[in-house]
Protein backbone atom coordinates (compact mmCIF):
# COMPACT_ATOMS: atom_id res chain seq x y z
CA UNK A 1 0.00 0.00 0.00
CA UNK A 2 2.79 2.40 0.93
CA UNK A 3 4.36 1.69 -2.46
CA UNK A 4 1.36 3.24 -4.19
CA UNK A 5 1.12 6.23 -1.86
CA UNK A 6 4.82 6.99 -2.18
CA UNK A 7 5.03 6.66 -5.95
CA UNK A 8 1.68 8.40 -6.30
CA UNK A 9 2.95 11.45 -4.42
CA UNK A 10 6.00 11.81 -6.66
CA UNK A 11 4.10 11.25 -9.90
CA UNK A 12 1.28 13.60 -8.86
CA UNK A 13 3.85 16.21 -7.87
CA UNK A 14 5.44 15.96 -11.31
CA UNK A 15 2.19 16.49 -13.20
CA UNK A 16 0.93 19.11 -10.78
CA UNK A 17 4.08 21.13 -11.26
CA UNK A 18 3.16 21.57 -14.95
CA UNK A 19 -0.20 23.00 -13.93
CA UNK A 20 1.28 25.39 -11.43
CA UNK A 21 4.43 25.95 -13.48
CA UNK A 22 6.94 25.41 -10.71
CA UNK A 23 8.81 22.37 -11.94
CA UNK A 24 12.06 23.89 -10.77
CA UNK A 25 11.02 24.21 -7.13
CA UNK A 26 9.69 20.66 -7.23
CA UNK A 27 13.02 19.38 -8.50
CA UNK A 28 14.82 21.37 -5.84
CA UNK A 29 12.48 20.16 -3.10
CA UNK A 30 13.37 16.51 -3.76
CA UNK A 31 16.90 17.37 -2.73
CA UNK A 32 15.96 19.42 0.32
CA UNK A 33 13.45 16.76 1.39
CA UNK A 34 16.08 14.03 1.35
CA UNK A 35 18.44 16.34 3.19
CA UNK A 36 15.78 17.16 5.80
CA UNK A 37 15.29 13.45 6.47
CA UNK A 38 18.94 13.06 7.42
CA UNK A 39 18.78 16.21 9.51
CA UNK A 40 15.69 14.87 11.27
CA UNK A 41 17.34 11.51 11.94
CA UNK A 42 20.38 13.27 13.38
CA UNK A 43 18.08 15.30 15.60
CA UNK A 44 16.46 12.11 16.87
CA UNK A 45 19.70 10.20 17.26
CA UNK A 46 20.82 11.45 20.67
CA UNK A 47 17.51 11.03 22.44
CA UNK A 48 16.80 7.73 20.75
CA UNK A 49 20.08 6.30 22.08
CA UNK A 50 19.65 7.81 25.52
CA UNK A 51 16.10 6.57 25.98
CA UNK A 52 16.83 3.11 24.57
CA UNK A 53 19.72 2.90 27.02
CA UNK A 54 17.49 3.75 29.97
CA UNK A 55 14.88 1.27 28.83
CA UNK A 56 17.51 -1.45 28.73
CA UNK A 57 18.23 -0.74 32.42
CA UNK A 58 14.51 -1.01 33.17
CA UNK A 59 14.34 -4.30 31.31
CA UNK A 60 17.32 -5.85 33.08
CA UNK A 61 16.05 -4.68 36.48
CA UNK A 62 12.82 -6.59 35.88
CA UNK A 63 10.54 -3.57 35.67
CA UNK A 64 8.55 -5.19 32.85
CA UNK A 65 7.62 -8.20 35.01
CA UNK A 66 6.72 -5.94 37.89
CA UNK A 67 4.40 -3.76 35.82
CA UNK A 68 2.93 -6.84 34.18
CA UNK A 69 1.75 -7.97 37.63
CA UNK A 70 -0.01 -4.64 38.11
CA UNK A 71 -2.06 -4.89 34.94
CA UNK A 72 -3.02 -8.54 35.41
CA UNK A 73 -6.39 -7.76 37.04
CA UNK A 74 -7.31 -5.90 33.86
CA UNK A 75 -6.95 -9.04 31.78
CA UNK A 76 -9.97 -10.62 33.48
CA UNK A 77 -12.03 -7.74 32.22
CA UNK A 78 -10.60 -7.79 28.71
CA UNK A 79 -10.38 -11.54 28.20
CA UNK A 80 -13.04 -13.06 30.46
CA UNK A 81 -12.94 -16.44 28.68
CA UNK A 82 -9.22 -17.02 29.19
CA UNK A 83 -7.43 -18.38 32.23
CA UNK A 84 -5.32 -15.51 33.63
CA UNK A 85 -2.37 -17.89 34.07
CA UNK A 86 -2.47 -19.31 30.55
CA UNK A 87 0.57 -18.70 28.34
CA UNK A 88 -1.57 -16.61 25.99
CA UNK A 89 -2.52 -14.13 28.71
CA UNK A 90 1.03 -14.00 30.08
CA UNK A 91 2.44 -13.17 26.65
CA UNK A 92 -0.25 -10.54 26.04
CA UNK A 93 0.41 -8.86 29.39
CA UNK A 94 4.15 -8.76 28.70
CA UNK A 95 3.49 -7.26 25.26
CA UNK A 96 1.22 -4.53 26.66
CA UNK A 97 3.75 -3.69 29.36
CA UNK A 98 6.58 -3.45 26.83
CA UNK A 99 4.43 -1.15 24.70
CA UNK A 100 3.64 1.00 27.70
CA UNK A 101 7.32 1.44 28.47
CA UNK A 102 8.05 2.22 24.84
CA UNK A 103 10.06 -0.98 24.30
CA UNK A 104 8.72 -1.47 20.80
CA UNK A 105 11.57 -3.78 19.78
CA UNK A 106 10.63 -6.14 22.59
CA UNK A 107 6.88 -5.67 22.24
CA UNK A 108 6.52 -7.06 18.73
CA UNK A 109 8.08 -10.51 19.35
CA UNK A 110 6.04 -10.81 22.57
CA UNK A 111 2.91 -9.83 20.67
CA UNK A 112 3.56 -12.40 17.97
CA UNK A 113 4.15 -15.05 20.64
CA UNK A 114 0.78 -14.11 22.13
CA UNK A 115 -0.88 -14.45 18.72
CA UNK A 116 0.62 -17.93 18.31
CA UNK A 117 -0.76 -18.94 21.73
CA UNK A 118 -4.16 -17.46 20.89
CA UNK A 119 -4.15 -19.33 17.60
CA UNK A 120 -3.60 -22.64 19.43
CA UNK A 121 -6.82 -22.18 21.38
CA UNK A 122 -8.75 -20.73 18.43
CA UNK A 123 -11.47 -23.14 17.36
CA UNK A 124 -11.86 -21.74 13.82
CA UNK A 125 -8.59 -21.48 11.93
CA UNK A 126 -8.08 -18.47 9.65
CA UNK A 127 -10.85 -16.56 11.47
CA UNK A 128 -9.89 -14.20 14.27
CA UNK A 129 -11.23 -15.08 17.71
CA UNK A 130 -12.78 -12.43 19.99
CA UNK A 131 -9.58 -12.45 22.04
CA UNK A 132 -7.41 -11.87 18.98
CA UNK A 133 -9.56 -8.94 17.88
CA UNK A 134 -9.37 -7.38 21.34
CA UNK A 135 -5.62 -7.91 21.58
CA UNK A 136 -4.87 -6.42 18.15
CA UNK A 137 -7.17 -3.45 18.82
CA UNK A 138 -5.24 -2.77 22.06
CA UNK A 139 -2.00 -2.94 20.10
CA UNK A 140 -3.21 -0.46 17.49
CA UNK A 141 -3.93 2.07 20.23
CA UNK A 142 -0.69 3.39 21.61
CA UNK A 143 -0.49 3.82 25.35
CA UNK A 144 3.04 4.97 26.03
CA UNK A 145 4.52 6.41 29.19
CA UNK A 146 6.68 8.93 27.33
CA UNK A 147 6.21 9.64 23.62
CA UNK A 148 9.95 10.22 23.14
CA UNK A 149 10.01 10.43 19.35
CA UNK A 150 7.53 13.29 19.15
CA UNK A 151 9.15 15.16 22.03
CA UNK A 152 12.58 14.91 20.44
CA UNK A 153 11.24 15.92 17.05
CA UNK A 154 9.58 18.96 18.61
CA UNK A 155 12.78 19.94 20.43
CA UNK A 156 14.81 19.53 17.24
CA UNK A 157 12.36 21.77 15.38
CA UNK A 158 12.98 24.53 17.92
CA UNK A 159 9.88 24.17 20.09
CA UNK A 160 9.76 26.36 23.19
CA UNK A 161 7.70 23.71 24.95
CA UNK A 162 8.66 20.25 23.64
CA UNK A 163 7.25 18.38 26.67
CA UNK A 164 3.93 20.20 26.71
CA UNK A 165 2.22 17.46 24.75
CA UNK A 166 2.79 14.59 27.21
CA UNK A 167 -0.40 14.99 29.23
CA UNK A 168 -2.61 15.66 26.17
CA UNK A 169 -1.12 12.55 24.55
CA UNK A 170 -2.00 10.47 27.62
CA UNK A 171 -5.57 11.75 27.66
CA UNK A 172 -6.04 11.09 23.95
CA UNK A 173 -4.53 7.63 23.95
CA UNK A 174 -6.62 6.56 26.93
CA UNK A 175 -9.77 7.86 25.22
CA UNK A 176 -8.83 6.12 21.96
CA UNK A 177 -8.09 2.86 23.75
CA UNK A 178 -11.36 3.00 25.67
CA UNK A 179 -13.37 3.56 22.50
CA UNK A 180 -11.49 0.74 20.74
CA UNK A 181 -12.02 -1.73 23.58
CA UNK A 182 -15.70 -0.90 23.99
CA UNK A 183 -16.33 -1.14 20.24
CA UNK A 184 -14.55 -4.48 20.08
CA UNK A 185 -16.65 -5.76 23.03
CA UNK A 186 -19.93 -4.64 21.50
CA UNK A 187 -19.16 -6.00 18.04
CA UNK A 188 -17.96 -9.34 19.39
CA UNK A 189 -21.25 -9.87 21.17
CA UNK A 190 -23.24 -8.94 18.08
CA UNK A 191 -21.88 -11.41 15.59
CA UNK A 192 -19.34 -13.50 17.45
CA UNK A 193 -21.12 -16.80 17.02
CA UNK A 194 -22.33 -16.50 13.49
CA UNK A 195 -19.02 -15.58 11.90
Amino acid at each position, binding site marked *: *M*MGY*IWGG*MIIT*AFFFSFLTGNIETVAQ*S*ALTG*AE*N*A*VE*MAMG*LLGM*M*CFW*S*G*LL*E*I*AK*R*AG*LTEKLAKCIRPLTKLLFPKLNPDSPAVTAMVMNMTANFLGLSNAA*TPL*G*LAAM*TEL*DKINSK*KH*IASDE*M*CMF*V*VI*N*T*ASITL*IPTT*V*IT*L*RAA*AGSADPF*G*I*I*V*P*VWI*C*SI*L*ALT*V*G*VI*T*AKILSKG*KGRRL
Partner: protein
Amino acid sequence: MLKYCSVMIMPAVFVLIISYGYANRVDVFNAFLDGAKSGLKTLFGILPALVGLMAAISMFRASGALQFLTGLLSPFTNHVGIPSEIMPLALLRPVSGSGSLALVNDLFKTAGPDSLAGRIASVIMGSTETTFYTLAVYYGSVNIRRTRHTLPAALLADLTGILAGTLICLLFYH
Protein backbone atom coordinates in the same frame (compact mmCIF):
# COMPACT_ATOMS: atom_id res chain seq x y z
CA MET B 1 0.00 23.30 35.73
CA LEU B 2 -0.35 21.14 32.64
CA LYS B 3 2.99 22.43 31.46
CA TYR B 4 4.70 21.86 34.80
CA CYS B 5 3.44 18.27 35.03
CA SER B 6 4.55 17.53 31.50
CA VAL B 7 8.05 18.89 32.09
CA MET B 8 8.44 16.94 35.34
CA ILE B 9 7.54 13.55 33.91
CA MET B 10 10.58 12.83 31.83
CA PRO B 11 13.36 13.52 34.38
CA ALA B 12 11.29 11.79 37.08
CA VAL B 13 11.07 8.66 34.95
CA PHE B 14 14.82 8.77 34.30
CA VAL B 15 15.57 8.87 38.04
CA LEU B 16 13.02 6.17 38.75
CA ILE B 17 14.46 3.77 36.20
CA ILE B 18 18.05 4.30 37.32
CA SER B 19 17.20 3.91 41.02
CA TYR B 20 15.20 0.80 40.24
CA GLY B 21 18.23 -0.52 38.40
CA TYR B 22 20.49 0.08 41.42
CA ALA B 23 17.96 -1.54 43.74
CA ASN B 24 18.02 -4.66 41.59
CA ARG B 25 21.81 -4.66 41.27
CA VAL B 26 21.92 -4.05 37.56
CA ASP B 27 25.19 -2.83 36.07
CA VAL B 28 23.36 0.32 34.98
CA PHE B 29 25.99 1.89 32.78
CA ASN B 30 26.69 -1.28 30.79
CA ALA B 31 22.97 -1.88 30.37
CA PHE B 32 22.62 1.69 29.21
CA LEU B 33 25.37 1.29 26.61
CA ASP B 34 23.84 -1.89 25.20
CA GLY B 35 20.43 -0.28 24.95
CA ALA B 36 21.80 2.87 23.34
CA LYS B 37 23.50 0.70 20.72
CA SER B 38 20.16 -0.88 19.82
CA GLY B 39 18.58 2.59 19.62
CA LEU B 40 21.25 3.54 17.11
CA LYS B 41 20.44 0.47 15.02
CA THR B 42 16.71 1.21 15.07
CA LEU B 43 17.21 4.75 13.88
CA PHE B 44 19.54 3.82 11.05
CA GLY B 45 17.05 1.12 10.13
CA ILE B 46 14.31 3.67 9.44
CA LEU B 47 16.57 6.26 7.82
CA PRO B 48 16.16 4.97 4.22
CA ALA B 49 12.37 5.11 4.57
CA LEU B 50 12.58 8.63 5.98
CA VAL B 51 14.76 9.84 3.11
CA GLY B 52 12.42 8.42 0.48
CA LEU B 53 9.29 9.74 2.16
CA MET B 54 10.58 13.19 3.05
CA ALA B 55 11.70 13.69 -0.56
CA ALA B 56 8.28 12.61 -1.86
CA ILE B 57 6.40 14.77 0.64
CA SER B 58 8.37 17.91 -0.06
CA MET B 59 7.90 17.39 -3.81
CA PHE B 60 4.20 16.87 -3.22
CA ARG B 61 4.02 20.08 -1.20
CA ALA B 62 6.21 22.18 -3.55
CA SER B 63 4.10 21.21 -6.56
CA GLY B 64 0.99 22.63 -4.93
CA ALA B 65 -0.69 19.21 -4.82
CA LEU B 66 -0.77 19.15 -1.02
CA GLN B 67 -2.48 22.52 -0.92
CA PHE B 68 -4.98 21.30 -3.49
CA LEU B 69 -5.72 18.23 -1.36
CA THR B 70 -6.17 20.21 1.86
CA GLY B 71 -8.34 22.68 -0.08
CA LEU B 72 -10.56 19.83 -1.22
CA LEU B 73 -10.93 18.63 2.36
CA SER B 74 -11.36 22.06 3.91
CA PRO B 75 -15.20 22.19 3.78
CA PHE B 76 -15.20 19.11 5.99
CA THR B 77 -12.33 20.21 8.24
CA ASN B 78 -13.71 23.72 8.75
CA HIS B 79 -16.95 22.16 9.83
CA VAL B 80 -15.28 20.05 12.51
CA GLY B 81 -12.73 22.70 13.47
CA ILE B 82 -9.62 20.70 12.49
CA PRO B 83 -6.92 22.86 10.87
CA SER B 84 -6.78 21.67 7.25
CA GLU B 85 -3.00 21.09 7.44
CA ILE B 86 -3.75 18.18 9.79
CA MET B 87 -5.87 16.23 7.32
CA PRO B 88 -3.04 14.64 5.31
CA LEU B 89 -1.58 13.37 8.60
CA ALA B 90 -4.93 12.03 9.78
CA LEU B 91 -5.25 10.10 6.52
CA LEU B 92 -1.70 8.74 6.46
CA ARG B 93 -1.30 7.96 10.17
CA PRO B 94 -2.99 4.53 10.19
CA VAL B 95 -1.13 3.48 7.02
CA SER B 96 2.51 4.40 7.58
CA GLY B 97 4.56 5.15 10.67
CA SER B 98 7.61 6.58 8.94
CA GLY B 99 5.38 8.39 6.43
CA SER B 100 3.43 10.19 9.14
CA LEU B 101 6.64 10.95 11.01
CA ALA B 102 7.94 12.60 7.84
CA LEU B 103 4.67 14.55 7.48
CA VAL B 104 4.86 15.77 11.08
CA ASN B 105 8.44 16.92 10.57
CA ASP B 106 7.40 18.71 7.37
CA LEU B 107 4.59 20.43 9.26
CA PHE B 108 7.03 21.49 12.01
CA LYS B 109 9.19 23.08 9.32
CA THR B 110 6.34 24.96 7.65
CA ALA B 111 3.98 25.84 10.52
CA GLY B 112 6.25 25.40 13.56
CA PRO B 113 6.02 22.86 16.40
CA ASP B 114 4.25 25.31 18.73
CA SER B 115 1.58 26.38 16.26
CA LEU B 116 -1.89 24.97 16.77
CA ALA B 117 -1.46 22.59 13.83
CA GLY B 118 1.98 21.59 15.11
CA ARG B 119 0.62 20.76 18.53
CA ILE B 120 -2.32 18.80 17.21
CA ALA B 121 0.01 16.87 14.91
CA SER B 122 2.27 16.07 17.90
CA VAL B 123 -0.62 14.77 19.98
CA ILE B 124 -2.01 12.67 17.11
CA MET B 125 1.44 11.23 16.39
CA GLY B 126 1.94 10.33 20.06
CA SER B 127 -1.45 8.88 20.79
CA THR B 128 -2.15 6.68 17.75
CA GLU B 129 -0.45 3.73 16.07
CA THR B 130 0.11 2.47 12.54
CA THR B 131 -3.11 0.45 12.53
CA PHE B 132 -2.84 -1.28 9.14
CA TYR B 133 0.76 -2.28 9.72
CA THR B 134 -0.04 -3.76 13.14
CA LEU B 135 -2.97 -5.70 11.71
CA ALA B 136 -0.90 -7.04 8.83
CA VAL B 137 1.99 -8.17 11.04
CA TYR B 138 -0.08 -9.67 13.85
CA TYR B 139 -2.69 -11.47 11.78
CA GLY B 140 -0.20 -12.36 9.06
CA SER B 141 1.97 -14.19 11.59
CA VAL B 142 -0.75 -16.72 12.40
CA ASN B 143 -2.36 -16.79 8.96
CA ILE B 144 -5.70 -15.25 9.93
CA ARG B 145 -7.72 -14.24 6.89
CA ARG B 146 -10.89 -12.90 8.43
CA THR B 147 -10.14 -10.17 10.94
CA ARG B 148 -13.85 -9.62 11.73
CA HIS B 149 -14.42 -6.47 13.78
CA THR B 150 -10.74 -5.63 14.40
CA LEU B 151 -10.41 -2.97 11.70
CA PRO B 152 -13.61 -1.04 12.46
CA ALA B 153 -12.83 -0.97 16.18
CA ALA B 154 -9.20 0.06 15.59
CA LEU B 155 -10.10 2.79 13.11
CA LEU B 156 -12.78 4.13 15.42
CA ALA B 157 -10.11 4.31 18.13
CA ASP B 158 -7.82 6.21 15.73
CA LEU B 159 -10.60 8.63 14.87
CA THR B 160 -11.23 9.19 18.58
CA GLY B 161 -7.54 9.96 19.10
CA ILE B 162 -7.51 12.44 16.22
CA LEU B 163 -10.69 14.25 17.28
CA ALA B 164 -9.73 14.28 20.97
CA GLY B 165 -6.25 15.59 20.09
CA THR B 166 -7.75 18.42 18.07
CA LEU B 167 -10.26 19.27 20.76
CA ILE B 168 -7.74 19.28 23.61
CA CYS B 169 -5.30 21.48 21.69
CA LEU B 170 -8.09 23.87 20.73
CA LEU B 171 -9.10 24.08 24.39
CA PHE B 172 -5.61 24.58 25.81
CA TYR B 173 -3.71 26.49 23.17
CA HIS B 174 -6.16 28.39 21.06
